[in-house]
């Protein structure tokens, strides 16, 4: 699909002589559906949260998040024996609407539908079950946090400019991709803030697997440069296959458009709603590019 996109970019060169005009499109309204974005990881409590919202009509003038409050949200851990998973109901922990958590409510103005509990500390290799009730609607999902793949080394090449702050910094990091099948999400953020409030706060993302670059020390190069002095934050996360397929389809769906676009639906890994429950095995590196 990435290759197809490359061709699409090439085809867009043909559009140099194209024109456009605004038109009126009348489409029938869609039935509202629940949407869930649930994330857990082993390292950053601030990235353990569930966001619940509802879909809206395409032409609805309300461009806000349409979050859902008053949901009951629980996460339960379990254990795996062979192909069987046993859930430890005693481990069930409730996540609360942030607007009802003193100290947090004032931090995230304008956000509804975020559920959070700082006491939730997930572990690598443990299965987790998500249970949500919104009125009579029930949503369930299962994930686990795969083995962490560490960022080993980070290095960069400079393209000097007369003005030092304009100097391009081409960054490469390396990690050891093991023999097992790995799936990755990479979140990139430049800035000094110590906390990423929600994965969406990152500036850009990559989703990739090891389908043909497998088992060895693997460099990952950024084609576009950063700038001299940038503080670069890299979150390399290993995720499960279902979670990877969801995020891969999300990338396609979010970037869909243009003359060759086809309708794309995300490949949800939860039941009862659109969305995903993703366990991230996070490896984090922060560096100042100098």
């Amino acid at each position, binding site marked *: *699909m*990435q*290759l*197809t996109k490359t*061709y699409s970019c*090439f*085809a867009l060169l*043909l*559009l140099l002589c*194209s*024109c*456009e*005009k*605004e*038109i009126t*499109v009348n*489409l*029938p*309204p869609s039935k509202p*559906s629940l*949407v869930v*974005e649930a994330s857990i990881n082993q390292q950053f409590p601030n990235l353990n949260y569930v966001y619940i*919202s*509802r879909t*809206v*009509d*395409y032409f609805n003038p*309300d*461009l806000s998040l349409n979050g859902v409050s008053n949901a009951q949200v629980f996460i339960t851990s379990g254990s795996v024996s062979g192909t069987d998973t046993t859930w430890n109901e005693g481990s069930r922990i409730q996540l609360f609407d942030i607007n009802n958590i003193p100290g947090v409510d004032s931090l995230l103005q304008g*956000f509804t539908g975020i559920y959070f509990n700082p006491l939730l500390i997930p572990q690598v290799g443990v299965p987790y079950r998500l249970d949500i009730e919104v009125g009579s609607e029930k949503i369930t999902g299962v994930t686990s946090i795969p083995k962490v793949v560490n960022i080993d080394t980070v290095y960069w090449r400079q393209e000097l400019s007369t003005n030092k702050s304009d100097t391009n910094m*081409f960054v490469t990091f390396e990690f050891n991709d093991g023999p097992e*099948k790995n799936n990755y999400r990479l979140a990139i953020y430049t*800035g000094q803030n110590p906390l990423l409030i*929600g*994965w969406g*706060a990152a500036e850009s*993302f990559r989703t990739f697997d090891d389908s*043909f670059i*497998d088992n*060895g020390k*693997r460099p990952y*190069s950024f*084609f*576009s*440069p950063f700038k001299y002095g940038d503080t670069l934050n890299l979150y390399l996360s290993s995720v499960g*296959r279902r979670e990877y397929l969801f995020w891969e*389809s*999300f990338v396609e*769906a*979010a970037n*869909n458009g243009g*003359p060759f*676009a*086809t*309708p*794309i*639906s995300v*490949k949800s890994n939860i039941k009862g709603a*659109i*969305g995903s429950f993703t366990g991230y095995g996070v490896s984090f590196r922060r560096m100042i590019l100098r």
Partner: protein
Amino acid sequence: MNKSTLSLCALAIAFLFALNTTGQTISGYVKDSATGEALIGALVKAEKSGTAADIKGFFSLKVSQGVHTITVTYLGYQSQTLTVDVSKDVILNIRLPQTGIKAKEAVVTGERNNKNVTSTEMSRVELTGEQVKTLPVIFGEPDVLKAITLLPGIKSGGEGGTGFYVRGGGPDQNLVLMDDAVIYNPSHLLGFLSVFNTDAVRNVEVIKGGMPANYGGRLSSILNVNLKEGNDKEYDVSGGVGLISSRLMFEGPIKKGKSAFMVAGRRTYIDALVKPFLTTEQKANGYYFYDFNAKAHFNIDEKNKIIFSGYFGRDIFTFKSPVNKLVKFQVGWGNAAASLRWYHSFNKKLYSNTVAIYNRYDLNNKFEFGENGFQLSSGLQDWNIKHDFYYTPSSKHQIKTGVQYIYHTFTPGIATGQVGTISIDERINKQYAHESAVYFLDEFKAGKRFTINAGLRLVSFTQVGPFTEKIFDDQDVEIGNGKSYGKGEPIKTYLGLEPRFAATYLLNSNTSLKASFTRTYQFLHLATTSGAQFPADLWVPSSKLVRPQIAYQYAVGLFKNFNENAYETSIEAYYKPMFNQIEFKPGAELFFNQNLENEMIFGQGLSYGIEVFGKKKFGKLTGWIGYTWSRTTRQFDELNQGEPFFFRYDRTHDISLVGTYQINAKWSGTMVFVYGTGNAATLPTGRYAYRAGYDIEKNEPKFTFVDLYDKVNDFRLPAYHRLDISFTYIKKKTARYESSWNFSIYNLYNRANPYFIYFVPDVDALKVRAYMVYLFPILPSVAWNFKF
């Protein structure tokens, strides 16, 4: 080839020789008087019988003893009428001159006959390369595939594109042949131009229904592009200079009157033209294509002829990152084809045609980033042999029988390279298949008014090893190997019987009723999720999971000519159910996917419609008008909640109007008007916010909107219509030199035709705005054509 195929072949040949014969024979060759080229399909008629010249221009006609009037006609050539006294077998070598310059420049030229009424063919259309050049064009580029979309029942895929859709079928359901070699990707420039160089093209025929038994392999249509064989009398050079490419064709005798060659080439130069205006960094990026045709024929003796035809073409796109000098990317794709034909005449009634063909399509991508890099490639190739017999035992029977065998090799993906310490050498399993067919057909007169063309085609497809089945878990992860098959070991075989039937009942000499029925199988399927033709689109074979596509087509028609065949009219109705149709799941990953079959879904399709056609063939004003009313749907359990939905190119109304007016000896003008109901499109009906976060610096939420789709192809884009005009000016024309200019204006009234629609949330106005992109506004162009 399996035993049943061989048995049927033997039976067919035995039947062929067992037929009784009586009377005398008029036989011979029909050729171009100037170049000596065989006029394939030239119509040779006596009072009560008729036949068509074969691939060598050979014909054989059974008549009674006595004086007969023989009429020979061919599209684009002056007809000849001969009086022949037949007391024994007669040999005639007929040379037809091309029609004069006035007629030649007309879009519709040639025959003043009622072939369209009397023949059993009912959904067949034909154009010559010369006719294509007179039509209005974009960027000065005449194009065969764009020209045929002006014919009724054949729809264009979109603005400026060469993709075509026949009676509700997809673009992969058209078999595109160049001198019998399959061209799997017939387009350059992502579908904006076809791979056919009009200077090298002699004629193009499209069979969109009532497919005779000697054709098969695709559900919807056969597009046959025949290249020029070369002038065996004198040397000729012709060519053209357009805005983005130039073309040149050179032909001449190898041995006068015995053998000749033709070579033709074409290359774009838009990359060279824009280079002076680009920065140094931009100059590293570019696109161009080229193609090359070569053909030669050798008349060994009166009974043997050998023809070689070859094609090679490529598109090359290069990219060098303007911000990161280590990043380079190059992609190249193209077709290659070669065929060697041996034509042998056993006697005046029986001849054979044997063709060995090789064709290939491949795509190669090369990515480099510093010391790291990898190459990705994919493609397919065929080895193909055909052996046909043509037998005319009497004036009442024309028999064709033959066999065909193809060995397919599919290469879905190979990745090689080096990234870090990792050496890349990954291969998606190659697939191999045998495809074979044996057919028999007889066109026979069942009475003075009744002619029947009945045929049967037995097709077989076997996927064979070497192949190792891969096993995937429910998360699409490869978890091991399944059964392995050795080289040539059958994995899955499909057999199909394709009855073909066409009949004509003459109401009078100018009016006939026709009916046809066909059943067709298709064993190869195009993996694409887009309406465009991408180089990375893969052809995949039928397998254990992927069953062959099947279509039935029923058609009836009334054909009537007026004013001594100066006007042709027809009305045809068709009904075409299609089964085992293939779509891909929304967002399917098609490239480098070992488990591609998991992305497929299977359903059915239905198309029906009425086509009305009228053509004026003579006079200063010539041309045609075609109107089609049709409806085409698809139904898949996994799409649209299982409800049938409109095919993307369902077009309720489709009109094409082509008119050429010969103003004087030097000037002619052509006008084209097309109208089509807007394409069916799937547009989002809802949206949701996802990938939520909070921007601490701006103190506001961050999120990404994702579109939600409900119904498939539930929205209609605005109607497509445009008017084009062109003027051809013959600057100079002598016996040895011809120079002409083509001035075109595409989209004369500047219609904004939809190319695609996109949406933009307007946060300030609190609304989502819809924008329609239209590709080509009014576009003038000029091209120079020459011949000497």
